[in-house]
């Protein structure tokens, strides 16, 4: 059997704790296979050039496996090919990577759907909603599409805006939400593309003494757990399992190294909704 000596991981941004957790899951899986295995996690900051460079560096460093969270699912293809030519197994994580041996990702469209379905139900299928967009990466685009699909099913739900970038961060979400709240006197619900934005939006609403807004998002991050338990307007988050994702990616990659290809190279991890009701039993990101 081929040995797993080192793994290279390149992710969109290590500033997002989500990807840090992916890295931890992958590290645990790698160490389970070979306690001496070296795992390097690099942050591409969503720059394809940087990501290519990192993959080249991994190739030069002679890793056995690369987990790539592609800055662009299609455009990553040449780099994937190069790595495979050097005999490296390439696994896409969180986002598809064209040409990769396999991809492990959350079903983002589904996540957007369940989050917005919950929102729609909570507001009684009518009223003004806002989709607080984020950096245009495929995961975000999928969530927004999933969400839009749900909203469009209800003629009484009106989407006021979906073209503002909350930058995926708390203060980005807060600033954008402040604008929304000033602009729109009547908002029933807000779907934020990730948890930090949702919390930022909640902070903004609190500050402006606006109540009764239903906020939902996607991620199930540690801080949303606290938010769901506390006095916030955040009602639900479609959870992802980054730790499990990293683990599964390495395990899948290791099997491919041993010659066992998965039946479907696209492995979708379903998202579960974490709500105020079930948050007590939610295990969170770190297993």
């Amino acid at each position, binding site marked *: 059997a081929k040995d797993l000596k080192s793994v290279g991981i390149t992710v969109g941004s290590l500033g997002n704790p989500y990807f840090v957790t992916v890295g931890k899951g992958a590290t645990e899986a790698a160490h389970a296979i070979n306690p001496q295995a070296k795992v390097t996690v690099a942050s591409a900051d969503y720059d394809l050039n940087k990501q290519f460079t990192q993959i080249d560096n991994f190739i030069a460093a002679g890793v056995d496996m690369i987990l790539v969270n592609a800055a662009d699912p299609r455009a990553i293809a040449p780099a994937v090919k190069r790595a495979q030519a050097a005999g490296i197994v390439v696994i896409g994580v969180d986002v598809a990577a064209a040409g990769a041996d396999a991809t492990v990702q959350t079903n983002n469209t589904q996540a957007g759907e369940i989050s917005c379905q919950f929102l729609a139900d909570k507001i009684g299928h009518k009223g003004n909603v806002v989709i607080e967009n984020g950096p245009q990466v495929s995961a975000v685009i999928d969530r927004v599409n999933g969400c839009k699909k749900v909203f469009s099913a209800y003629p009484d739900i009106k989407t006021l*805006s979906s073209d*503002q970038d909350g930058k995926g961060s708390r203060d980005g979400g807060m*600033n*954008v939400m402040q604008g929304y709240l000033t602009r729109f006197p009547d908002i029933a619900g807000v779907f934020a593309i990730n948890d930090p934005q949702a919390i930022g939006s909640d*902070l903004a609403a609190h500050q402006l003494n606006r109540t009764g807004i239903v906020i939902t998002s996607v991620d199930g991050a540690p*801080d949303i757990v606290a938010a769901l338990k506390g006095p916030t307007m955040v009602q639900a988050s479609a959870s992802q399992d980054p730790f499990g994702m990293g683990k599964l990616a390495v395990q899948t990659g290791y099997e491919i190294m041993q010659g066992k290809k998965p039946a479907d190279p696209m492995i979708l991890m379903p998202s579960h909704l974490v709500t105020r009701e079930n948050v007590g039993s939610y295990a969170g990101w770190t297993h």
Partner: protein
Amino acid sequence: MSDISEDSTAAGPTQPSGGAGLSARQLQVRSIVQALGMLPVLFILAIAFHYLGDERFLTPQNLSIVAQQAAINTVLGAGMTFVILTGGIDLSVGSILAASAMSALIFSLLPGWGMLGIPAALLTGLGFGLINGSLIAFGKLPPFIVTLGSLTAVRGLARLMGNDATIFNPDLPFAFIGNAAITIAPGVRVPVLAVIAIVVILISWYVLRRTVLGIWIYAVGGNPAAARLSGIKVWRILLFVYSVSGMLAGLGGVMSAARLFAANGLQLGQSYELDAIAAVILGGTSFVGGIGSIWGTLIGALIIAVLSNGLTLVGVSDIWQFIVKGLVIIGAVALDRVRLQGSART
């Protein structure tokens, strides 16, 4: 050869007979015009946004939001003004803000001692500022490179402090800093963040205009060699300005932590340095050093905040926000230039 020279001077030494340089009065006027130079731009923007945005811009509530959004950049810009007045630059403020916010949150989690988060953040900022300043003052290294280095290194440290995760504290003991507002008149509430920013501006103004230190800062920026020959300890001035900039970045960290209840070593403060520098330069402070005022920086920071807030309010899409913002920044200085035309010699 001195037969006629006596009486001609009797005409009075104070007489700017024919040609002396600009008088202080003129200069003061010019400097005020320059500092307030961008005020018209600010007003035009505000009015435009008000009418384009369904008259929602100039409401007390929204103005308080704008003030809040401008506050952190104003504080960073004040520190940056000190630095740029000496002819330097500080690229590391965004990273220092992130590290200080991390400090603030880490200490805020100490049971019973949560308020320690504030001094911890200030000291973190001051510490990094001192390191920057020492390298520049004693090592005589170029400020751009030193602070570019610490932009990178401090960013790493900030991430290390939180183990690359977001630290959050929903029960932040100093949350009022980021969220409370002070009622200064019936119905007029000023956010604490904005009050802090105004206090920082006032102190900066006092230091720059009313103290010896202020003159020395201007002198070092105007002609470092002359300052040195006058016996000014240039290294002290440099140490001071970078420390101030660091400490104010630390204050920015406290403000940001208090506003968000959370901090993240990687994301927080990314490219804040550009906004701070933009505020300073929009405010008419010169990159070569020695010329500029703190009021300009305040107005510059307000313009930037008004732009972001107003464009969102009007519903301009994110893409067009970029384009419009860029053009307005250029347009603002261009306008300023047209207004001040013909005041410079070669």
